[in-house]
């Protein structure tokens, strides 16, 4: 694998972009990370993802792979000899995919987005919805150390990237996620001890400042 060229186009706060880099780090793959300015997208990004023009994009020996969960599965298949992310059993794989799809469908991020972009009754409804989603995920975790069981896996990668946004959600929403979902927070802190995770994820206070900036930009103070 010596002459592999791997490039990731990402954005520092993106919960989707960081999934790609965590997966690569888990596998010990050397790659070049390029930060995109989303208000001024590079010609490489536009060339490699002309359909959506979004990050993340993984470029492996010149060939692009787009969509974060598709990238994670690709990384898992190509570099299969180290740190398997998806389980080998088809049913367990289906379960992991189901819950990752749940995360993206319920769009934890969008439910969270309502937390910092709404007020009053809408805001209270958003809080309730957000906690319901996290509680369902907590149910899937059960008493396991990771969603993947004994090992950090696909679903852990899919969800952990949202953790550094929790501080922003809690501060804007004036509530404690840990109080509502203690097992999930315990799981998140366990994941944060992994090099592949803490080295990639942005500092939660910086994410909060980013959110405040976005709120100002959209006139939502």
């Amino acid at each position, binding site marked *: 694998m010596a002459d592999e060229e791997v490039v990731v186009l990402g954005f520092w706060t993106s919960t989707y972009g960081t999934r790609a880099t965590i997966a690569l780090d888990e596998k010990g793959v050397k790659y070049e990370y390029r930060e995109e300015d989303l208000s001024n997208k590079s010609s490489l990004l536009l060339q490699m993802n002309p359909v959506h023009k979004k990050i993340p994009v993984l470029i492996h020996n010149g060939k692009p*792979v787009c969509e974060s969960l598709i990238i994670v599965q690709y990384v898992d298949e190509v570099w299969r000899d180290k740190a398997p992310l998806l389980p080998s059993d088809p*049913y367990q794989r289906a379960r992991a995919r189901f819950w990752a*799809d749940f995360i993206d469908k319920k769009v934890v991020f969008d439910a969270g987005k309502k937390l910092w972009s709404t007020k009053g009754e809408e805001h209270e409804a958003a809080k309730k919805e957000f906690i319901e989603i996290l509680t369902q995920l907590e149910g899937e975790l059960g008493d396991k150390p990771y969603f993947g069981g004994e090992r950090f896996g696909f679903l852990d990668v899919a969800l952990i990237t949202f953790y550094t946004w929790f501080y922003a959600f809690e501060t804007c929403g004036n509530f404690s996620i840990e109080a509502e979902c203690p097992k999930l927070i315990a799981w998140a802190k366990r994941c944060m001890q992994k090099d592949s995770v803490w080295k990639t994820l942005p500092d939660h206070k910086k994410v909060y400042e980013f959110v405040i900036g976005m709120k100002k930009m959209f006139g939502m103070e």
Partner: protein
Amino acid sequence: MAEVKLLGFWPSFFVHRVIWALKLKGVSYEYIEEDLSNKSQLLLQSNPVYKKVPVLVHGGKTIAESLIILEYIEETWPEKPLLPKDPHEKALARFWIQFGVEKIRPSLGAYFRAVGDEEQEKATKELHEALKILEEQVLGDKIFFGGDTIGLGDIACGALSYWFECVEEAVGKKVLEPGTLPRLHAWAQNFKQVPVIKESLPDHGRLLDYVKHTREKFVLAKSTAQ
């Protein structure tokens, strides 16, 4: 071999996808028709998160969400593969299936629901643009999305053939025409002729009635809302 059951609803194209995949793989299964206005205990227990069909029950284990079921079928019965072996080709197939979910389906939904000239024109244009991408960038010169034989991509898009024909008839306006989308139109005809697909399609008349009835509900809802 553990028992396979499929909980379904006869007009649902999500359910049809699973039927096609099981048949293409030669997997025997028991089909259980659900009354969606009175969901069975089995359905509610098997899919507590969404309470929807299709649900595949294999040896007591339950799998929900049609595209996830398709990947499960592909991995559990790997003979007669429906996805490419090469990781990059596989990622590309998955990408376009995801594109179908994010861009094609909402446009189809909007077209189905559009009432009045302005709304219909806008919906038709957007749908046509999304289908053009499928035709030019995904299908290209191939007969099927899977190449010479059908694959998961064809199964995922299958509704664009028989189901969409009924929608066009109910709405009264064609979009998938040989003049404007020649390759995709040809794909739709070829897809319906694949033996496993042909023998599995619901009765056209019955499906048309169902689709027309659904369309009437949209039109009525819009007109009473005004």
